[in-house]
């Protein structure tokens, strides 16, 4: 008959209230800590200030990179921009990203519906344009979807082939009303009236910039400025901010995954990184229950440094 030996278990952790005590002024400690933190905050703020680079306005975009505005407007009409082909939550032009075959983005549904062409057409319709613009809008509306796409795609290709992508140097072609619409859009952006026209709230108090930011992101100007300031996605951009400021270093692990394969080259990088970070976060949260992870502090005895006074006293006691 086999005998079983009882499994060795660690004794339970002793109740902290049963240990020898010493006076400890918690309130005094907190007040001193508050004073130190307040002083440090004032010093750091006074010495280093904080970054505040002005937001890009549509007018600034149109002035600094007119070709980019025209190319973006044309891309919106052609349905070829990032937002036009994004998928949920903006449209159903793609399924979006998935992780382990689970299409979470698709499951989220199209809840912020967006027709990319409307990013251009709606502000133009709202603007008090002249007869040329009105005729161009009417011609666009009367055309079939296939004809619209053909016009816009042809003009987009012609823009890309023009020297410096300059709209004034585009070769003649069958572009329909697209050049008029794109150039009118550029004019509207220059005038400073585009932000208000694109506010997504639909009322006087515009607090939702979804459409403006999607349009801006579809262009190259925003990303070029960000990359020049080392804020690109492959430059640890999510955790940085403009200037020499610490930004959000606590997001280093999230940002780290975007810098390495397979995530840096994956079509589903965002979903994969999020999934990985959720697993790691749950791991951190449930460390107390994960064998191995919870044992590392015993294996690497940094606690000997933290509680050195206690262990020294215990050693002395056992010697005496």
């Amino acid at each position, binding site marked *: 008959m086999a005998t079983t030996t009882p499994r060795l278990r660690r004794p339970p952790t002793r109740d902290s209230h049963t240990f*020898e005590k010493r006076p400890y002024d918690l309130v005094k400690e907190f007040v001193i800590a*508050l004073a130190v933190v307040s002083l440090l905050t004032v010093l750091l703020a006074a010495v280093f200030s904080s970054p505040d680079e002005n937001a890009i306005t549509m007018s600034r975009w149109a002035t600094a990179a007119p070709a980019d505005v025209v190319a973006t407007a044309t891309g919106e009409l052609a349905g070829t921009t990032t937002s036009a082909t994004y998928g949920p939550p903006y449209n159903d032009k793609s399924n979006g*990203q998935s992780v382990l075959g689970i299409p*979470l983005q698709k499951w*989220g549904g199209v809840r912020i519906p967006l027709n990319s062409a409307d990013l251009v057409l709606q502000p133009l319709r709202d603007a008090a344009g002249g007869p040329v613009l009105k005729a161009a809008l009417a011609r666009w509306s009367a055309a079939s979807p296939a004809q619209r796409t053909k016009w816009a795609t042809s003009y987009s290709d012609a823009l890309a082939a023009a020297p410096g992508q300059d709209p004034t140097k585009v070769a003649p072609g069958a572009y329909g009303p697209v050049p008029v619409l794109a150039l009118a859009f550029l004019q509207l952006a220059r005038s400073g009236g585009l932000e208000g026209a694109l506010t997504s709230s639909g009322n006087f108090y515009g607090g939702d910039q979804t459409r403006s930011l999607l349009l801006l992101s579809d262009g190259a100007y925003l990303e070029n400025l960000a990359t020049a300031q080392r*804020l690109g996605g492959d430059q640890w951009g999510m955790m940085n901010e403009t200037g020499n400021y610490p930004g959000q270093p606590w997001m280093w692990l999230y940002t780290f995954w975007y810098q390495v394969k397979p995530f840096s080259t994956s079509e589903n990088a965002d979903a994969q*990184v*999020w999934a990985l970070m959720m697993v790691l976060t749950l791991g951190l949260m449930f460390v107390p229950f994960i064998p191995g992870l919870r044992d590392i502090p015993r294996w690497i005895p940094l606690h000997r440094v*933290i509680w050195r006074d206690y262990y020294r006293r215990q050693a002395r006691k056992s010697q005496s």
Partner: protein
Amino acid sequence: MTTVKPAAPVGSAGPSSSWTVWLRKRLTGLVPPGEALPDQQPAYVSSWIYVFGVLTLASLLVVLVTGGLLALGGVAWWHGSSLGHFVNSLHLWSVELFFVFMVVHLWGKYWMAAWRGKRALTWITGVVAFIASIGTAFTGYLTQSNFDSQWISAEAKDGINSIGVGSWFNVLNPGQMLLWHVVLLPFAIGVVTVMHVVLVRRHGVVPPLDAEAGQ
């Protein structure tokens, strides 16, 4: 004719099924008598690492106060006012300090295996506070109404959308992000922090490793 019962002395037992009695018992039983704000600690509480928990709490208070001052002027105040800009700087640096202290506190507690002795929930609430703080700081960057806000929101939307929650947590909507930043997430941090501190006071500071029962 109605009869009036004589008033029962304060503190005497009321109906045992009273919701008030139940809640009072729960609240008073959360922390052992005298441990809510003790003037003594176990003798092993003798290391600089213990200071970082208090520093985290103190910096959270500074973050809330500077954020409140910033809120006084409104969203765009700090762009055109040198005082507003300074208050923004105070808020920024208090947040940076808050995270430094919190991360050191977290690592310190890890190497102390501070979840021992039925303290797992204390650890978990600390991690939840850390995660909620990251979300709060992140929404702060989205509500600055400057270039950083534009770029960070443009980048972040892909991550949020990829897991299907972008329409409920729309990082391109600064109005929504502002409310998450100044109401919802700070409230969550406040609640979790109170739970965390109550749990610390309830169980006391974790004893040294190997200082087990009977030793």
